[in-house]
């Protein structure tokens, strides 16, 4: 792999940019792999990258039905934070946030991590108490976050209206080291790094069946033929139920549409990320100047990658009361992704009822921020054959054993 650098840009400038090579290879699938990963979203690609980098396992195929990063990874509002309530979540999200800080350098790929700060508004008394509790939990877990007063919020976000009649701003939870990153670049950077280490990323290759003998995984059927494997890891977010059905079991997961939109581009008005959970509104400004707005998810099972219009309307209607300045902006684009929601709003990383088949799913509305840590933990599990350290609390048994990792109390929608 040719490294990207300021020198490389200068060099290419003198030869009509003829020397750039393809960022990743497009191989034909081998007949067999040690590990097959289904799904080339951020989590699948990061898993492949760390399998190769941390564990030296490179006979790996990543199978993607569409194009890499075309699922939720390429559709999300890119909020990165780690101030979760429960210790288990805090551990994996904080590892992720830390890895994000050094990721551009590690991957030699600019993922545009921007630690611009994430402000979670408290707009009801209940929410104010919930954030105070979270801030104490964060302090105990060694995660830096702090409660801020309305006056301080006005300094951080001058365009905010604190005294809205319906949604007054009573305080907030501020994580200065949270922020955003370029979503496509995260997928592309991991793909380039994994491909360089020998991983085969095969796009336009849909998994249509899962082969097993005597309860043990043997391979997969795909639109490009049968592929054998020793271990299989399914990392397909909203499609997890479909893959589980192919293998003959059910998951504690339901697939729903979550939407986002961007406004027309304007001059800089907002230099941090705002989360207004009471009204399910999320707001940041992209480098192009568009306001990136995320909303709440629909409540019913849905695979259409488009949500109901009234959710967009609700989100925008509420945000306008808190940010009156945005009321005249036009919507430029709107889209949806299919999110995999679990009962406790925490992910699943672990084994499945089929021997040799593993799963990573359930990140729902908030798994962009966790891509590096989740890939790290999933690679560790695939290498060892057992979920270790970070992953261990997130196995599926928790639903049977009653040890939920309840993040839905902390933020009903945890972007």
């Amino acid at each position, binding site marked *: 792999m040719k490294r990207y650098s300021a020198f490389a840009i200068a060099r290419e400038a003198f030869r009509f940019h003829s020397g750039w090579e393809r960022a990743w290879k497009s191989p034909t699938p081998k007949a067999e792999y040690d590990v097959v990963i289904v799904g080339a979203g951020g989590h699948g690609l990061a898993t492949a990258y760390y399998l190769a980098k941390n564990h030296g396992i490179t006979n790996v195929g990543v199978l993607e039905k569409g194009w890499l990063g075309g699922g939720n990874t390429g559709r999300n509002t890119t909020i990165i934070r780690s101030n979760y309530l429960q210790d288990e979540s805090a551990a994996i999200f904080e590892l992720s946030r830390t890895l994000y800080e050094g990721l551009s350098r590690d991957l030699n790929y600019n993922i545009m991590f921007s630690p611009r700060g994430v402000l979670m508004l408290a707009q009801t008394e209940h929410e104010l108490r919930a954030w105070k509790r979270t801030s104490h939990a964060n302090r105990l877990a060694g995660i830096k976050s702090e409660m801020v007063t309305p006056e301080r919020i006005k300094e951080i976000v001058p365009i905010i209206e604190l005294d809205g009649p319906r949604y007054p701003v009573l305080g907030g939870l501020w994580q200065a080291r949270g922020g955003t990153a370029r979503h496509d670049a995260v997928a592309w950077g991991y793909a380039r790094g994994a491909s360089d280490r020998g991983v085969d990323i095969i796009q336009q290759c849909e998994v249509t069946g899962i082969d097993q003998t005597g309860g043990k995984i043997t391979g997969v059927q795909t639109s490009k033929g049968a592929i054998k494997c020793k271990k299989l890891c399914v990392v397909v977010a909203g499609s997890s139920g479909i893959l589980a*059905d192919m293998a003959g079991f059910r998951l*504690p997961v*339901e*697939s729903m549409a979550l939407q986002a939109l961007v406004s027309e581009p304007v001059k800089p008005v907002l230099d941090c990320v705002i989360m207004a959970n009471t009204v399910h509104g999320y707001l940041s400004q992209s480098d192009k100047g568009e306001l990136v707005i995320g909303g709440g998810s629909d409540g019913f099972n849905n*695979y259409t990658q488009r949500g109901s219009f009234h959710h967009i309307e609700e989100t925008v209607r509420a945000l306008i009361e808190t940010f009156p300045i945005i009321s005249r902006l036009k919507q430029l684009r709107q889209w949806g992704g299919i999110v995999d929601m679990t*009962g406790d709003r925490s992910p699943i990383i672990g084994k499945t009822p089929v021997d040799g088949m593993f799963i990573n799913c359930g990140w729902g509305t908030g798994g962009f921020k966790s891509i590096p840590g989740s890939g790290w933990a999933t690679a560790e599990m695939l290498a060892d054959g057992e979920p270790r350290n970070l992953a261990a609390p997130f196995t599926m048994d928790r639903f*049977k054993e009653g040890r939920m990792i309840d993040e839905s109390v902390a933020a009903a929608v945890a972007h």
Partner: protein
Amino acid sequence: MLMLKCPNCGVTAEETEFAPGGEAHLTRFASGSEDQAFSDYLFARKNPRGVHFERWRHAFGCGKWFHAARCTATLEVFGTYTGQTSTPPDDITAAVKAKRPEWEGFK
């Protein structure tokens, strides 16, 4: 936008008038049952891409529960029916079959 007809009061309205209640016709397991059965009842879902039987409540209308057969891949509604049944009635399964010949039937 999703349109549903409430079989209780006969009103056809937009989804904003209704509240979704998740997968229908679950067998209830409570105290005294096996852990796995109880946990599956609470959490494990079919979550199919295609024909789905589900519960809805006419929250901003008559307030009553009912059932719907709907396609999760297209949002097409095959029909709605009474909440007082533990399996979809024959006319509903026939309506689904007419639109989705490949559908394997209610399981």
